[in-house]
């Protein structure tokens, strides 16, 4: 049995978790700057790194108490070192290093994106080879995994992330940030009345582009305003969401067709979107041999439990860091060599 404590502070959430064998969450304390966790009394500090600094020790205490473990029960300290905001990453990294040094535990460096994918293990163990569709505010990627800890990007966004396009369309509709959930709910009340363009739909490969869709939605709204017309927000949301889902599902289908994987993981903040989950569930009827493993909704956003899950892969592979580990704000997976894949 391997029990890891994990630290995550790459963006808006400060989180510490205790995870057993990469699949059982013993505790997961999350303080967010967006909707302050009830437990913390509703204080929402305004500055990211200060917020992290304020909450890192509190979330640590809560994670240990909730899991009912002592530092001597732990086998390692997993921590996100990128990608993310450097000032925010540093707080979690320093917290993890300090904890590792104080309790003489090995430090395990974790890629935040690997964490999002590994959180699928909280649903059911990922079966390899696997394909992961990772969709969040900062990333939109199709990732091929031959085995645990082997990540290659098949396709990614050329410009905006899918979650980012949700937030920006949300701003246009005066919805609160982050807007993903609100648009999802609006979309379910509306009809698809506008056929938004599918960027790159005709191009080969597995890449995405959402900047053109964002512009098309803006143009639609502006042109309607100029003509003195009003577009039903519900219909606009439904049409926008339909275009995003069509792009995501279309590329995923192509990748599943070209690469014989045993499971499809849906990960990242946008994985909580009910429209996307439903569309992928439908798609999987065409691929009965592939297990569909969406990350459980409560672990789709940023959290430390997922870092504990990915950290367990590193622990098994004996990937450890010295205490001089630094942040890597631009960390990403390597690109797949598609020419080579074709020859295999």
């Amino acid at each position, binding site marked *: 049995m391997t029990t890891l404590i994990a630290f995550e502070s790459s*963006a808006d959430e400060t989180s510490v978790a205790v995870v057993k064998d990469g699949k059982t969450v013993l505790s997961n304390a999350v303080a967010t*700057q967006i909707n302050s966790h009830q437990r913390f009394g509703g204080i929402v500090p*305004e*500055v*990211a*790194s*200060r917020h992290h600094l304020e909450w890192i020790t509190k979330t640590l205490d809560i994670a240990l108490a909730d899991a009912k473990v002592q530092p001597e029960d732990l086998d390692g300290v997993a921590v996100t070192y990128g*990608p*993310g*905001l*450097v*000032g925010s990453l540093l707080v979690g990294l320093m917290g993890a290093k300090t904890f590792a040094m104080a309790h003489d535990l090995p430090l395990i460096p974790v890629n935040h994106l690997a964490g999002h994918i590994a959180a699928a293990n909280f649903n059911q163990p990922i079966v390899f080879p696997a394909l992961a569709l990772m969709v*969040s*505010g*900062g*990333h939109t990627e199709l990732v091929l995994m031959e085995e645990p800890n082997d990540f290659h990007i098949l396709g*990614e*966004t*050329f*410009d*905006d*992330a899918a*979650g*980012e396009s949700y*937030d*920006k369309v949300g*701003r*246009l509709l005066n919805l609160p*940030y982050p807007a993903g959930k609100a648009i999802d709910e609006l979309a379910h009340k509306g009809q698809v009345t506008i056929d938004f363009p599918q960027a790159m739909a005709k191009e080969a490969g597995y890449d995405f582009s959402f*900047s053109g869709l*964002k*512009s098309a939605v*803006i*143009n639609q709204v*502006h*042109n309607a305003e*100029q003509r003195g017309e009003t577009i039903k927000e519900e219909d606009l949301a439904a049409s926008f969401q339909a275009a995003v889902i069509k792009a995501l599902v279309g590329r995923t289908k192509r990748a599943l067709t070209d690469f014989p994987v045993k499971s499809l993981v849906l990960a990242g903040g946008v994985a909580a979107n009910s429209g996307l989950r439903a569309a992928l569930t439908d798609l999987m009827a065409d691929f009965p041999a592939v297990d569909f493993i969406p990350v459980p909704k409560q672990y789709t956003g940023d959290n430390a439990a997922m870092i504990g899950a990915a950290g367990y892969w590193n622990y098994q592979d004996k990937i450890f860091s010295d205490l001089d580990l630094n942040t890597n*704000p*631009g960390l990403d997976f390597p690109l797949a060599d598609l020419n080579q894949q074709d020859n295999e």
Partner: protein
Amino acid sequence: MKSYQTNNSKETQALAEQLAKLVYPGLVVTLQGDLGAGKTTFTQGLAKALGITSRVKSPTFNILNTYEEGRIPLYHFDAYRLENMGAADQGFEDYLGTDGVTLIEWPQYMADLLPNDRLEMTFTRMAGADSDREIVVRGLGQATQIEEDLHG
């Protein structure tokens, strides 16, 4: 103050290529304009002209993306998310006025950190065709020379 009109993203990127010839280490360029006005498109054109081969994606989430492989480093900021968070204490000022050229989208959300010498660019959608843009360029302090030398 100079004003340019572009009719599509290709023309916007052509103007960026002209600017790429004039940029120097330490230059700060602010890119103001609404969502979808062409700020990231412009940055992609400038990056390519600087010899940067990796994909220039929207920095909205990370706030800062850095590219080191071009003629000079490119620091691509997007302060969009700082509207609520504030720009203080993030260490961003360490990147301004150093060894690279810095492009800043949504500069109004990190106004306190902007140097007095800078090139201000404003992107506006024109009424009529969806892809028409007016791009206004204004040099402040030492960047005045760039405004004069820039020809679209």
